[in-house]
């Protein structure tokens, strides 16, 4: 695999401890008086398939705090599992974090978090926090992104942009769970706003686009047009480009059956639908977080079995 960027690193072995150096020059706007100095986190990961061993290796790794990756672990099928750390323990007001993920042809990468992504209360003068993902999955490659829940604290202002491009026969499992806040502390929809944007494309054609703005004080989440009686929401995108429509119709029917099994009208509902091409989406809403965090892996395993012939255990957590 060709190294990414203008400053290719030596190949990092799976066991190698990361040296978090990043020389990237960035132009940041000046911070407002009284606000936190802007933190510009940066993480760039490149995965490559090594034909001789049949394994995926983490080949490119650049990072700047608070984002950090310690090492890659091997999965049961020769893929690479990486835990994305946020050394701040969460996203602070004014943080600008960029993650660039390149999965080379034939490689299999799995990303997870080390815990819930906490979106902390910012100072009034802080700029909104921003996290931007640019993801490219090469021909015949697979990326699985299985993070923990996003928890917006009271007052949080956060924008997340995710742009994923898929090459021919590229696969994707990408899930997200959004909590209403720190429910155990009595914080429920106490954040200011979340903007969640996601675009998945294949050959320049959009497969799925989300443009969500959650603004509890201006647009009640409890409206039946939004969450109604539910508080947590989850989504899972399952894609593999180039598969015939009938395969997706079959998988949709199978996962819809699972959705029916897992749905409890008074506590949790699931639905499944095909995208315009090359994939499907699973959506879940629940009053509590547990049914979603327990249900998503069921859909993931079932879809993985059908699309890649094998289930894997959920990624182990490290702290």
């Amino acid at each position, binding site marked *: 695999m060709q190294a990414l960027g203008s400053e290719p690193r030596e190949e990092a072995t799976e066991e190698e401890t990361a040296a978090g150096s990043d020389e990237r020059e960035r132009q940041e706007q000046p911070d407002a008086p009284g606000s936190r100095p802007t933190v510009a986190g940066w993480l760039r990961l490149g995965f490559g398939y090594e034909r001789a061993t049949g394994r995926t290796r983490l080949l490119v790794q650049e990072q700047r705090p608070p984002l950090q990756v310690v090492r890659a672990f091997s999965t049961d099928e020769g893929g690479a599992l990486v835990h994305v750390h946020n050394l701040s323990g969460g996203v602070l007001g004014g943080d600008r974090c960029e993650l660039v993920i390149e999965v080379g042809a034939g490689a299999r990468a799995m990303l997870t978090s080390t815990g819930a992504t906490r979106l902390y209360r910012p100072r009034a003068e802080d700029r909104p926090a921003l996290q931007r993902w640019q993801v490219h999955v090469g021909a015949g490659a697979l990326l699985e992104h299985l993070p923990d829940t996003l928890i917006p604290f009271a007052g949080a202002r956060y924008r997340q942009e995710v742009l994923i491009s898929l090459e021919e026969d590229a696969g994707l499992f990408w899930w997200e769970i959004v909590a209403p806040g720190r429910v155990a502390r009595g914080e429920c929809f106490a954040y200011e706003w979340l*903007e969640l944007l996601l*675009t*998945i494309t294949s050959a320049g*054609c*959009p*497969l*799925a*686009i*989300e*443009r*969500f*703005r*959650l603004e509890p004080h201006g*647009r*009640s989440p409890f*409206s*039946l*047009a*939004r*969450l*109604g*009686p*539910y508080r947590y*929401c989850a989504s899972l995108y399952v894609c593999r480009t180039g598969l015939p429509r009938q395969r997706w119709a079959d998988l*949709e029917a199978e996962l*819809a059956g699972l*959705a*029916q099994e897992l*749905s409890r*009208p008074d506590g949790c*509902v*699931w*639905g*499944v*639908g*095909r*995208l*315009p091409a090359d994939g499907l*989406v699973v*959506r879940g*809403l629940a009053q509590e977080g547990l049914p979603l965090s327990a249900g998503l892996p069921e859909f993931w395993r079932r879809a993985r079995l059908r699309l890649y012939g094998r289930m894997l255990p959920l990624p182990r957590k490290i702290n």
Partner: protein
Amino acid sequence: MAALLGEPPLAGPPRDGLCLDLEPLQVLQLLQLCDSALPVGGSAHSFGLETLVAEELLTVETLEEFLRAYLTEAGLLEGVFFGRGWRLAALSSPEELVLRWRALNAELSALKLARESRQASIMMGRRLLHLVQGWFSDERLTSVQQVALREDGASHYALAAGLLCGLLGIEERAALAAFLHQQLAAVLAACQRLLPLGQRRAMLLLWQLKPVLLAVTEQARDCLERGEEPWQWTPLVELGSLRHPYLETRLFIS
């Protein structure tokens, strides 16, 4: 009514407020295009509402609040794409128009994550483009109609309706408001079949929600003017659409 002989003609009410630049013929054309009885198949779809009713979430009591929020989310998205379709009429080249038409339809398809609602929108758009064949002649319309005939030629209703109004030269704001009015009327008609909602109550709601329609019209035009993307977050309705095929009994198409 003609003025009585010998009396000066009545001046009519003052023309303050919204002043539209529409020819009488355009008013009639808009009335026909935005008639809730336009045979494009809209009455066959509930866009997820049937599931919400079946699960006893959507009731007559909660309907007005639901519609207000639904219009500000889904209505805004539809309104912006209607406007984008309307603005395509400014292109003189059929080739360029078809290129932009395809891109906009692909984008709207990707935004409509629930397959059932996406396909309903495409089917209604195709029917509309088919329906207006012979109504008037325009090379650009013919090009889009040919695209719509292809299996992969997604043609969403909002874009098709917008393009038609643009080609007819019907002022954008009036056309957009009328389109949203038609959408709301269709939702109310579906609710009349699903809920114990009488005609008087339905018509009252349609009347009372007009200010919301106009506010969404202005929001959509702001998005169009600023080149901004509209937000839409209607997860429960989307789930209703995703789960609709699995209801035990259904009045509407899945």
